[in-house]
């Protein structure tokens, strides 16, 4: 069977499964549509959170980022997992106890303010829309590479599948498809990792392989990798980072951003009890951890594999790295996987010194004595995970599995985000503000229509990505960190913060963060409108625009506290609401008013 047929088979079978689940889990009420009926088991929910959370970025890009940055990019590993500790300890159980359907609804009720609710709706929509465009575009790329259709056609196929199960089933359909998608993506991620770990270190468990000896050289894998990359002028893989302040703030922004993302928080509304919300956060991190503990192993092993593919003499024990570096493979002898990826433009080659060989190195170091005149090979970080099975010569069914896994990761996150957007529109905007007397059936219909519109908009923007789509980390995490997380936390842990404090806090955190990002990235991300070049020398105190969300959050906390202190206490019934949220007793299921 051809590779193409195998890919079609794997992807087709997984899609058939999702559609089957959608038909089985049709939503009959708004409670089904928003919170899957409220009876999801904590382990099931943990798995669904895993798929909801792990996007195309986690599945495809993260290992590539770590491979390129080594220790410095451990920030993604810690940031995207540490947020779950904050969720479990500071938000999830109390928001579950509150027992409503959406995140803006809590903000509106707790701060007895429709304005606060609308600010939250806007933050939610901007953060989620930025995020979902990336997922749709990622699905399009996976389609075009593995199923040989163009990216736009691929995008439309993906949109139709998501449309089917999310419009029909709402949260209920999404929950059970996410469980299936988690299983598909984790199997797809770990199988090639196990093979590669066995091949390189003899250890079948990739997280242990990472700290084991490299079989071919007998040295520890990470020492070997350090030697190879430094011989080619790159930073050592495990090198320390000088700008520790920025590393801390970036990790913190990712953590509180994770905890403030509405599509993740919403999943905690689906479990029956407060205690279940705590347990499901733990299970979620176990399921996420399986991938996040595998990713750094994949990263270092893929990087070493890539280097020794180009410089075969570096594979075993090396006496003289200079000599090994001078013996690169000829471009004509490059392996098939390089040829395949060249067609997508994600690998490019230019023979700068016309010697017919591939020179792949960091050309900010001068290697003229080796006869090199610049780096000749550029490899996009994103292909490492997708190309891994080919680099390691794994059987063709593994490649089919990777295709299905990448799509599962993209679609499961897209569905969660689309649900967050559509419920903010139908529940917070339509029922909460425009037409509070809408019937249950009317609201369910409105939810389905908003979901359909959200899918169409996301698909269109996925095919024609606007400038801000590439700024997921800055925009989605920055907004969630600087606006949503602080007010949610204060709403639970302080009885004193009032409506004025919350609104002032959200707006100042948000404005500060956006302005700092726009100064370096361009106003509204329009190229050329930035005031300062986005380089470390220009950053205030060395803080990157990607790390500024944490500072925005601190500003939000401070402003909310000061404004509340200087104005009146919240009314008695609001203080009682805060108390009721704090104690698990008497929760009941998530209810509509």
């Amino acid at each position, binding site marked *: 069977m051809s590779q193409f047929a195998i890919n079609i088979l794997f992807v087709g079978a997984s899609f058939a499964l999702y559609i089957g689940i959608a038909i089985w889990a049709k939503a009959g009420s708004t409670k089904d549509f928003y919170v899957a009926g409220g009876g999801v088991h904590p382990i099931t929910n943990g798995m669904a959170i895993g798929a909801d959370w792990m996007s195309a970025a986690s599945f495809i890009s993260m290992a590539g980022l770590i491979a390129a940055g080594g220790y410095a990019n451990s920030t993604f590993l810690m940031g995207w997992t540490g947020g779950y500790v904050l969720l479990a300890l500071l938000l999830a159980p109390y928001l579950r106890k509150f027992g409503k359907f959406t995140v803006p609804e809590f903000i509106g009720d707790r701060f007895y303010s429709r304005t606060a609710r609308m600010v939250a709706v806007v933050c939610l929509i901007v953060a989620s829309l930025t995020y979902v465009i990336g997922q749709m575009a990622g699905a399009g790329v996976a389609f075009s590479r593995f199923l040989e259709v163009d990216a736009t056609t691929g995008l439309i196929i993906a949109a139709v599948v998501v449309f089917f199960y999310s419009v029909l089933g709402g949260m209920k359909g999404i929950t059970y498809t996410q469980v299936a998608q988690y299983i598909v993506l984790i199997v797809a991620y770990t199988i090639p990792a196990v093979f590669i770990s066995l091949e390189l270190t003899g250890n079948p468990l990739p997280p242990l392989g*990472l700290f084991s000896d490299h079989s071919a050289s007998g040295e520890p894998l990470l020492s070997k990798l350090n030697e190879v990359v430094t011989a080619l002028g790159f930073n050592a893989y495990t090198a320390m980072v000088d700008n520790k302040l920025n590393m801390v703030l970036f990790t913190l922004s990712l953590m509180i951003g994770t905890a403030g993302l509405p599509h993740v928080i919403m999943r905690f509304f689906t479990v029956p009890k407060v*205690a279940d919300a705590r347990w499901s956060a733990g299970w979620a991190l176990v399921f996420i951890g399986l991938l996040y503990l595998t990713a750094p192993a994949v990263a270092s092993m893929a990087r070493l594999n890539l280097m020794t593919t180009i410089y075969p003499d570096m594979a075993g024990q090396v006496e003289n790295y200079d000599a090994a570096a001078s013996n690169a493979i000829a471009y004509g002898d490059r392996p098939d996987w390089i040829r395949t990826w060249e067609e997508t433009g994600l690998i490019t080659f230019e023979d700068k010194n016309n010697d017919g060989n591939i020179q792949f190195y960091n050309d900010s170091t001068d290697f003229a004595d080796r006869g090199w005149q610049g780096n000749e090979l550029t490899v996009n970080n994103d292909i490492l995970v997708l190309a891994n099975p080919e680099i390691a010569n794994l059987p063709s069914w593994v490649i089919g599995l990777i295709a299905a896994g990448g799509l599962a990761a993209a679609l499961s996150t897209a569905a969660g985000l689309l649900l967050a957007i559509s419920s903010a529109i139908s529940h917070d905007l339509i029922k909460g503000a425009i037409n509070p007397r809408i019937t249950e059936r009317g609201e369910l219909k409105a939810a389905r229509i908003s979901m359909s519109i959200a899918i169409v908009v996301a698909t269109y923007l996925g095919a024609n990505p606007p400038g801000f789509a590439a700024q997921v980390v800055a925009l989605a995490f920055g907004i969630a960190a600087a606006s949503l997380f602080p007010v949610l936390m204060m709403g639970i842990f302080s009885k004193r913060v009032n409506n004025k404090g919350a609104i002032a806090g959200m707006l100042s955190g948000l404005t500060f963060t956006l302005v700092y990002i726009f100064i370096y990235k361009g106003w509204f991300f329009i190229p050329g409108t930035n005031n300062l070049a986005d380089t470390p020398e220009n950053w205030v105190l060395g803080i990157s625009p990607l790390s500024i969300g944490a500072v925005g959050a601190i500003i939000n906390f401070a402003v909310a506290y000061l404004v509340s202190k200087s104005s009146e206490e919240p009314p008695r019934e609001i203080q009682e609401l805060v108390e009721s949220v704090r104690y698990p007793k008497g929760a009941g299921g998530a209810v509509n008013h």
Partner: protein
Amino acid sequence: MADEKSNAEAYWKANVRLITGCLIVWALVSYGCAILLRPLLSSIPVGGTDLGFWFAQQGSILTFIGLIFFYAWKMNRLDKQYGLEE
């Protein structure tokens, strides 16, 4: 009524204490061992590199998982102890 109120307050205080303790560990493994204190831990070798690198790429994630389950277990006991469970 007054008893019920002071009972609930005691429960909340115990919860906040537990959260504070857990967050200290959370910050210590990630911001501490993995980033700020890494130079101090660089003399402790782990598989070709040092302990700080291990914390950055594995140790902190494993600690986070442990922390959430510890908190969930402790809170279940607190809920029962104060008669506030569902």
